[in-house]
């Protein structure tokens, strides 16, 4: 079953933020959602996670329609938000146990999953440390561990590496790639950082609320006739220059 189905989703604030967005993600797919700040990435994530509702269009998570099932549609979903969401005064373990309880996991099961996820992210030794005492990269790893704790079928990551150094970013990107493959999780990774994109990565380019390109990064580059992804991106968004896009 398709991990995520977005069909003709539009949303407007004072002006349109998303216009007829349609795409799908299959289990095991790793899809990068590339767009400038304000392109609509966070709006799209807010609609998928039901932080607010889509007035038009259809969103299905593993065949579950958010419009029909409400919050129950979020069961197979894992999310890593752009904004840090860990409780700084609690330990890593307490944060993860809290999340596990919200997902209905029994304590023993939760602890096993927690150690598995933290081990995979080289964070098992920090389990009893307060989040406040961790650096930004480690906090991000804990957020990712939390996002996969309940074995989601779809994982959304909204600019999860923002503010991190290049080696940490690369390690996290690599880990999520492996995770998608090994556990057959559909992944949608929103970013505006080109160095997170590999030539074979599946790419969605969002500009002013519209999907303007879909395909592997190398195909997108080839179709636009640009020399690299940065050039292709500038062509796709109509020549706008934007200092937020980082090579």
């Amino acid at each position, binding site marked *: 079953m398709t991990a995520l189905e977005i069909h003709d989703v539009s949303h407007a604030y004072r002006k349109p933020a998303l216009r007829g967005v349609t795409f799908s993600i299959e289990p095991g797919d790793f899809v990068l959602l590339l767009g400038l700040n304000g392109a609509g990435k966070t709006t799209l994530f807010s609609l998928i996670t039901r*932080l607010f509702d889509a007035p038009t269009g259809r969103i299905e998570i593993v065949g579950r329609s958010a419009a029909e099932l409400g919050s129950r549609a979020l069961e197979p*979903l894992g999310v890593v938000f752009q*904004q840090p969401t860990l409780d700084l005064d*609690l330990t890593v373990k*307490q944060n993860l146990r*809290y999340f596990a*309880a919200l997902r209905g996991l029994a304590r023993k099961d939760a602890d096993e999953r927690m150690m598995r996820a933290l081990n995979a992210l080289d964070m098992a030794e920090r389990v009893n440390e307060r989040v406040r005492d961790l650096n930004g990269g480690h906090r991000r790893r804990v957020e990712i561990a939390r996002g996969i704790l309940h074995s989601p079928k779809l994982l959304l990551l909204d600019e999860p590496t923002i503010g991190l150094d290049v080696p940490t970013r690369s390690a996290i990107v690599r880990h999520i790639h492996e995770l998608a493959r090994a556990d057959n999780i559909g992944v949608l990774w929103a970013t505006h950082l080109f160095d997170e994109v590999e030539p074979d990565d599946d790419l969605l380019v969002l500009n002013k609320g519209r999907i303007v390109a879909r395909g592997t990064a190398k195909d997108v580059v080839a179709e636009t006739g640009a020399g690299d992804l940065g050039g292709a991106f500038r062509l796709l968004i109509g020549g706008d220059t934007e200092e937020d896009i980082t090579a």
Partner: protein
Amino acid sequence: MKPMHYLRAFYGIVWREFLRFLQQRERFFAALVRPLVWLIIFAAGFRAALGISIIPPYQTYITYDVYITPGLVAMIQLFNGMQTSLSMVYDREMGSMRVLLTTPLPRWFLLVSRLFAGVTVSLFQVYTFLLVAYFFGVELPPWGYLAALPALILTGMMFGALGMLVSSTIKQLENFAGIMNFVIFPMFFASSALYPLWKMREGSLWLYYICIYNPFTYGVELIRFAFYLEVNWQALAVVLGCLLVFVGLSVWAYDPSVGIQQRKAAAAAAAA
């Protein structure tokens, strides 16, 4: 959704609030100091000046510090309700509210669980205050301490729900202090917490009418009667009614399709 999922989530929310409470010991002491200052300093002064005649539920003349105790208990709960509100605004600004709201459980359940978690914390504060008050001579009927528990849960929920509703309207953490002043102090002073309503009517008729339309008055009276093993049915009805209204409005405010949160998110995104 399995009932066990609800139970675990409820436990998780209460447990987290309790852990946070343990991390914030200053909050516990601050919550105690405020009513104790009222009891030990303010009430001691008034004790000489103000006698309370026999009014239900009291069956004899009582001292002012005994009279004021239920009001101070309600004040602890009101402050705690607003603290919950502050904590929700903080959670929203820090992002951890998103974790809660993207849980696959009904939003009303998540908000009521959060509410109950706040009340659990307030009960620790209330009973600690009553223990200290006991050593300062405020003795209540022994069974009254237990009989008041359901009343304390209800009033705590009502004030917490009011706080939650307030939190849905606050855009930034910095605005909270102003809102506190607009909500807490008028509610406390314009109620039966400090003076019996009949005395209030003698002093000022318009203030009396404000008091009888103030839900805080009914919270205080529900607790006062419960301490003396009685039920004030009118107070119970008002507290239950207000609780339902405040919870209903809070759930509406946090609803992703219609609520205030939706409009705030929209405004923030539009400004970005």
